[in-house]
């Protein structure tokens, strides 16, 4: 009976369990979970604050998930080392576990740059885990003034989550625009405007110069009082275990299409990894939930002796605030052409290069965008489809009758 | 006014009975009369009759015409007509026994005739056809003559009354036949006319029938295309014509004729051998209008044998008994047990399955 060990208990780990079980019904699976919660998806923590979900519903899988999959979870433990030669891991309590196949789903950790006086702030929080969210929930009151450092996905979702619970929210970021990693200036401006209309204040293009208790002074001189500080500057992949074991690591753990690390029988999946983005043909840490699952599943299948690859990863994000959504995917490579359509409530930007759709940004109108996403993912030559119609509206009808015959008259 | 027989179609329920010696032994009419007694309630006194085969050995080469005349003038007219076509060999009263149960008797004559060769040559027909034509003509014309039997070496005896009375009336114990059939009638609507009683005969074919056929008008309108006139509007009459048409005119075998009259279902034909499938399909294709539907059990008497046939759903009772050289057929087993008290072998033929009994070759 094979021994599988999965370090971490996030979505990648869940994918890994399901991947293993799709091939091997027998092998023993052990999951080492630092958090004392069954698997949940990190992005839900803001919805928790927003009351769109609760601790029970946040569970990524049903209550009997581990039981059904015959997986043992060791809660509240971390792995302190991997011995790749002995093929065993050592837990923080000194216990060891042998493995035939190991998967690192260690995720990422908040990255907090050094800021002067930060230690003087009492109410400061990260926003990564349920526990962070629960702590934040306790800390805020309807009179709270919240300062969020970071106008990225995490920071803004946190802002949305806290919005109805507090008096005032200010988000600051060094970048000159919100969601700078996924939106360009024009799109970011529309999103920022929408956020502002919902009562979120922004201080952009500058960073905190100095904290002093509940007071901050920005580099540009702006000064602000707050009650609660949320640090959402960024994350870093948790690569140490693999790196220490001698594995190949850059910004993330380097994995191939089969989610193998450079070490024998050691796989990695999820936010801790860096992998190939086919839309930009670069390797990067994408830290995206769908990809994490797919990587985990791929790793699981391969660990169990099956064959699977995840070779069409692209960055993509679906995010919305106060009912206003944006979908982005892929990249805007240099020299790409942009097709744009916009009015005051929506923007559509499609990026085309070398007869391929490489990326898009959509704000406001989110109807059937998966059809665009598939074009990127499948690298569909645009000359083979009716892109003129497709640009106007995502529709199967522009993809040719042979394609829709396959899709609609058969099983896909 | 109640319409006369022939003016209206008269459905009726009935009793039938028959006995035949395969060895050709001749038997008097006692037992066949007795066989009708236990089936008394199947008749209502409005018709009974018998057919007997082999009763005129000394006149076997002549057509024995049994004729009812309403009166002397009808008789004279009819005899004059007959003389145009036939040589009259013998013209006599049929002897009867006067009895209170049988009343309103017509003049009943037996005339043995021989077709005139010159007539046959002139009309370019055979003698049987001549007999049929003349008989049809006499019977179709309402002049008061009715030929109720016209075969060779056979004869029908019928009257209004219960069959057992009719048998005694005609003194059938004095006739000796190798084959007897009998009929008791339960018409639902008739003034009681002697000619309407069964058997119905044409040439040596005689039919006794129990049932009411639903295909009547389809059969009638078809058969009338071929020179037959269904003057009586009875099932028995049309069945007799069908038998004559199929057996004599078309030359079908008894089995083939049975497969027309009580055709096997298509579903049954499907299951048969290729040769049979072809044969039965052919017969049903060629003679669809002669399929007889509705309940019937018939006994067709002919020269040298008889055939009993039920409708293909067997909607009427009919049982057959066999003992030594004898075969008995009747609507009810009780009738057979009267004729053959210690009989063992009695069965009920399936619907549409003909029971054909032939007398040994040369024995009659």
């Amino acid at each position, binding site marked *: 009976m094979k021994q599988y060990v999965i370090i971490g208990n996030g*979505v990648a780990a869940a*994918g890994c369990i399901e991947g293993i079980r799709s091939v091997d019904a027998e092998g023993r699976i052990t999951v080492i979970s630092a958090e004392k919660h069954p698997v949940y*998806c990190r*992005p*839900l923590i803001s*919805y928790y604050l927003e009351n*769109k*979900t609760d601790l029970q*519903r*946040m*569970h*990524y*899988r049903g209550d009997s998930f581990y039981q059904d999959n015959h997986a043992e979870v060791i809660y509240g433990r971390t792995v302190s080392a991997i011995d790749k030669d002995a093929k065993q891991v050592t837990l923080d309590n000194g216990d060891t576990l042998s493995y035939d196949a190991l998967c690192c789903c260690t995720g990422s950790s908040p990255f907090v740059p050094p800021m002067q006086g930060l230690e003087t702030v009492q109410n400061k929080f990260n926003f990564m885990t349920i526990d962070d969210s629960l702590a934040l929930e306790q800390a805020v009151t309807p009179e709270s003034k919240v300062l969020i450092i970071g106008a990225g996905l995490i920071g803004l979702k946190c802002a949305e989550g806290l919005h109805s619970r507090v008096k005032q929210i200010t988000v600051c970021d060094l970048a000159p625009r919100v969601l700078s990693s996924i939106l360009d200036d024009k799109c970011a401006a529309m999103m920022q405007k929408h956020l502002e209309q919902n009562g979120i204040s922004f201080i952009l293009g500058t960073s905190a110069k100095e904290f002093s208790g509940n007071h901050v002074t920005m580099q540009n001189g702006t000064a602000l009082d707050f009650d609660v500080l949320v640090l959402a500057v960024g994350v870093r992949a948790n690569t140490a275990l693999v790196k220490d074991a001698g594995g190949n690591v850059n910004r993330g753990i380097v994995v191939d299409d089969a989610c193998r690390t450079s070490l024998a029988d050691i796989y990695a999946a999820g936010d801790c990894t860096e992998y190939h983005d086919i839309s930009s043909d670069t390797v990067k840490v994408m830290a995206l*939930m*769908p990809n994490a*699952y*797919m990587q985990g*599943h791929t790793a699981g299948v391969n660990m169990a002796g099956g064959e699977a690859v995840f070779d069409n990863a692209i960055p*993509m*994000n*679906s*995010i*919305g605030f106060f*009912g206003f*959504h944006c*979908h982005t*995917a892929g990249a805007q490579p240099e020299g790409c052409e942009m097709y744009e359509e916009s009015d005051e409530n929506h923007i559509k930007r499609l990026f085309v290069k070398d007869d391929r759709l490489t990326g898009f940004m959509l704000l406001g109108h*989110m*109807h*059937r*965008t*998966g*059809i665009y*996403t*598939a074009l990127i*993912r*499948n690298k569909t030559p645009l000359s083979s489809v*009716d892109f003129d*119609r497709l640009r106007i509206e*995502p*529709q*199967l*009808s*522009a993809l040719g*009758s042979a394609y*829709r015959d396959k*899709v*609609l*008259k*058969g*099983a*896909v | 006014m109640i319409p006369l027989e022939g003016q209206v179609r008269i459905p009726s329920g009935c009793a039938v009975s028959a006995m035949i010696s395969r060895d050709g032994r001749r038997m008097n009419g006692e037992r066949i009369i007795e066989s009708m007694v236990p089936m008394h309630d199947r008749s209502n006194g409005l018709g009974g009759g018998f057919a007997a085969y082999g009763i005129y050995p000394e006149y076997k080469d002549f057509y024995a015409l049994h004729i009812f005349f309403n009166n002397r003038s009808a008789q004279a007219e009819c005899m004059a007509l007959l003389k145009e076509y036939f040589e009259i060999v013998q013209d006599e009263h049929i002897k009867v026994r006067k009895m209170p149960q049988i009343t309103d008797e017509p003049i009943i004559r037996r005339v043995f005739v021989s077709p005139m060769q010159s007539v046959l040559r002139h009309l370019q027909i055979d003698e049987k056809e001549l007999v049929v034509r003349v008989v049809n003509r006499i019977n179709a014309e309402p002049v008061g003559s009715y030929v109720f039997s016209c075969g060779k070496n056979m004869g029908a005896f019928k009257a209004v009354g219960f069959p057992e009375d009719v048998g005694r009336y005609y003194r059938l114990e004095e006739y000796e036949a190798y084959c007897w059939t009998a009929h008791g009638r339960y018409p639902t609507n008739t003034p009681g006319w002697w000619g309407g009683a069964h058997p119905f005969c044409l040439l040596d074919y005689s039919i006794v029938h129990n049932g009411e056929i639903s295909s009547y008008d389809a059969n009638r309108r078809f058969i009338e295309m071929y020179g037959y006139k269904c003057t009586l509007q009875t099932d028995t009459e049309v069945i007799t014509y069908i038998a004559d048409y199929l057996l004599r005119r078309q030359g079908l075998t008894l089995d083939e004729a049975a497969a027309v009259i009580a055709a096997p279902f298509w579903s049954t034909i499907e299951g048969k051998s290729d040769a049979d499938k072809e044969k039965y399909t052919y017969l049903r294709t060629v003679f669809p209008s002669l399929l007889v539907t509705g309940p019937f059990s018939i006994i067709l008497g002919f020269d040298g044998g008889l055939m009993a046939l039920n409708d293909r759903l067997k909607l009427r009772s009919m049982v057959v008994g066999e003992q030594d050289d004898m075969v008995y057929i009747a609507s009810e087993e009780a009738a057979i047990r009267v004729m053959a008290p210690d009989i063992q072998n009695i069965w009920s033929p399936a619907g549409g399955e003909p029971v054909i009994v032939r007398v040994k070759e040369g024995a009659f």
Partner: protein
Amino acid sequence: MKRIYVKEEWCLGCHLCEYNCAFANSGMTDMVKALRGKTIYPRIQVEQDENGVTYAVSCRHCKDPICVKSCIAGALSKKDGVIEIDHSKCVGCLTCVLVCPYGAVVEDGSGVAQKCELCMKNTCGSPACVKGCPNGAIVYEDRGDAE
């Protein structure tokens, strides 16, 4: 298992499937009450190609459903060949809309995602689009090609 197949050669573009879908999933017993004066959010969409050919598109219940793999809330799952959505878990992130290659997952008008569940969760019993199609352009049958 039974699946929905689309026969575009018989689609009349009447859009009744969309209305029947919206009604079937409205939870109401009267179509007028359910749909009159309202914008409908059907789980099936009639498309028309450049030649005027129309056809309806709804969830294909894929063998390898990327929506299920992408759902951040674990609200989407595949059970007995049917991809279901647990509306109580859905937080309305619309990642499923972003990933469905057929555009078959859509927003329901209230912010959460919805998709065809073959009318297994409503009182219709079998897909309303199929039952209501006047020309047999949408069929629900077992062709043995589904998982």
